[in-house]
């Protein structure tokens, strides 16, 4: 009995921790919330000297770079998951699966290093000159491309979240009952048609969860994004222009914030990020658990 009580108390620490994080962040954010109110969410001004802060560019940049990451990563990750569960020969599954999961083990700062010295030069000097004649009339590719940009951040993020989406989708697809596949094949469908019309729709909720899980990762990713996004407090629809994210702003400005209101504004942005990621992750869990009930899909996959 004592044993059980001790374990229960220790297990209670986790919910307590989540609660404490929320309370601490909010209490530090109160001064800024009081001062700026809802305008914090809608204004683009970020002026430490005059003490005026609005997080619209940060919120926009966070969502925009994550969206770009999803657009690139989701189709690739799903294709990888399908490859690993349906098409790959047995002997290839384990090594390829391990390699893809290892992508998640690479530390963020190394992705950033790679982004600065390899990816950005490639995007700027090799990729952009080739596609410019076609793409420069598209609004989201307007302006001069110097390198650090939402595009670079999105590409890095897509590489970083791909293993999460692929690993969870793979678990979800494995959980699809074999007789579903057999039924599809028995009706005369090709293997691809079975995957497309039977397996993927069956795992829909779980795959959605995997995608949302990836989104959660992308929203909160800090170091790699800070190193390549350009860190400018501006809202620009062009992928080629620098942007900023909440996490990057905290990383850059937190230790240099001199005024209390600056610090409090960063906490307010942080509390916002915390809230968003908690909601996103909770949603993802619910969706994944519906398919693979109660299992640690995604938390052990990494």
């Amino acid at each position, binding site marked *: 009995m004592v044993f059980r009580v001790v374990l229960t108390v*220790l297990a209670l620490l986790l919910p307590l921790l989540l609660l404490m994080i929320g309370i601490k962040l909010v209490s530090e954010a109160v001064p800024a919330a009081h001062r700026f109110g809802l305008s914090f969410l809608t204004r683009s001004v970020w002026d430490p000297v005059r003490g005026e802060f609005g997080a619209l560019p940060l919120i926009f940049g966070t969502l925009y770079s994550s969206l770009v990451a999803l657009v690139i990563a989701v189709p690739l990750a799903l294709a990888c998951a399908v490859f690993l569960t349906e098409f790959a020969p047995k002997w290839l599954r384990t090594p390829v699966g391990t*390699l893809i999961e290892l992508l998640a083990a690479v530390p*963020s700062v190394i992705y950033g*290093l790679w982004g600065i*010295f390899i990816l950005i030069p490639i995007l700027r000097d090799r990729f952009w000159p080739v596609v410019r004649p076609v793409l420069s009339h598209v609004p989201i590719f307007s302006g001069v491309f110097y390198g650090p940009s939402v595009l670079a951040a999105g590409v890095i993020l897509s590489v970083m979240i791909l293993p999460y989406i692929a690993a969870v989708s793979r678990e979800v697809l494995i959980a699809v009952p074999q007789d579903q596949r057999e039924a599809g094949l028995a009706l005369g469908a090709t293997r691809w048609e079975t995957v497309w019309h039977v397996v993927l729709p069956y795992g829909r909720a779980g795959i959605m969860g995997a995608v949302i899980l990836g989104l959660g990762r992308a929203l909160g990713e800090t170091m790699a994004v800070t190193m390549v996004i350009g860190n400018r407090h501006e809202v620009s629809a062009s992928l080629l222009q620098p942007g900023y994210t909440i996490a990057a702003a905290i*990383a850059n400005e937190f230790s240099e914030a001199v005024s209390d209101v600056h610090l409090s504004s960063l906490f307010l942005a942080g509390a916002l990020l915390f809230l968003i990621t908690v909601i996103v992750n909770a949603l993802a869990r619910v969706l994944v658990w519906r398919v693979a009930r109660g299992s640690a899909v995604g938390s052990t996959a*990494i």
Partner: protein
Amino acid sequence: MRGRLARRLVGSTMTGLTYGAAALAILPLAVIFIMLLVKGAGSLDLNFFIKSAVPVGEPGGGFAFAIVGTLIIVGLACVIGVPIGVATGIFLAEFGGGRFGFAVRFVADVLNGVPSIVIGIFAWTWLVKPMGHFSALAGGFALGMILVPIVARTTEEMVRLVPNSLREAALALGYPRWRTSLQVVVRTATAGIVTGCLVAVARVAGETAPLLFTALGNQFFSTRLNGPMAALPLQIYAYALGPYDEWHRQAWAGALVLIVLVLALSLIARAVVRAKHQHA
């Protein structure tokens, strides 16, 4: 209905595309590895491991202070995070069937998704602000908090793998519940639990964001837990953004050391898990 040929064509095209996608997904890993070797291996020498930073222009600087710092901070994180994580994991596996267990499991997964930078500023309000200065201790605390949910979930999985018949045998022999759990179940699952801890350590060892405002970094060799301390990821970050080519070279070398450390840990863990699963 489309023709049979057309359908088979679509099928093989899409199958081929998934092969391509898998190759494309692995490509960045290969590229990162090759670049790390090309750019980093050249700067790796004995000095790198035994010397600390020197002023720019002087030869022979190293990352010893950062490597030692990372080991100390990660060690602290384990001291703080592993006991809580393992205990939570055992609880979830042995008593976690009810509503409370479900809630803890849910919270663990949600915590796992909380951005590490948020954990970092939380640790700042918790330890750095009251104490009035940055410290390795705060860094270890921040990493420890990231460790807990990962360790908890992997421990749970591993303890769950222990067959129920073992539990029943121990209980039938008159063992009390706690001795059954600790001396029979957990002992059987020890290898798996250690593995889970390794995976978690591999993940936090590369974390930079939570250390920015806790351990802060340090240009000098320091083993004082109560003061700022260097860490490998922090040093890579600082040097990568710095203006000197010499720094960039050292950043690549540091990154190579870090990734070898991290990947070795995750690969060992994976191998153990796989061996374990095949037994089960």
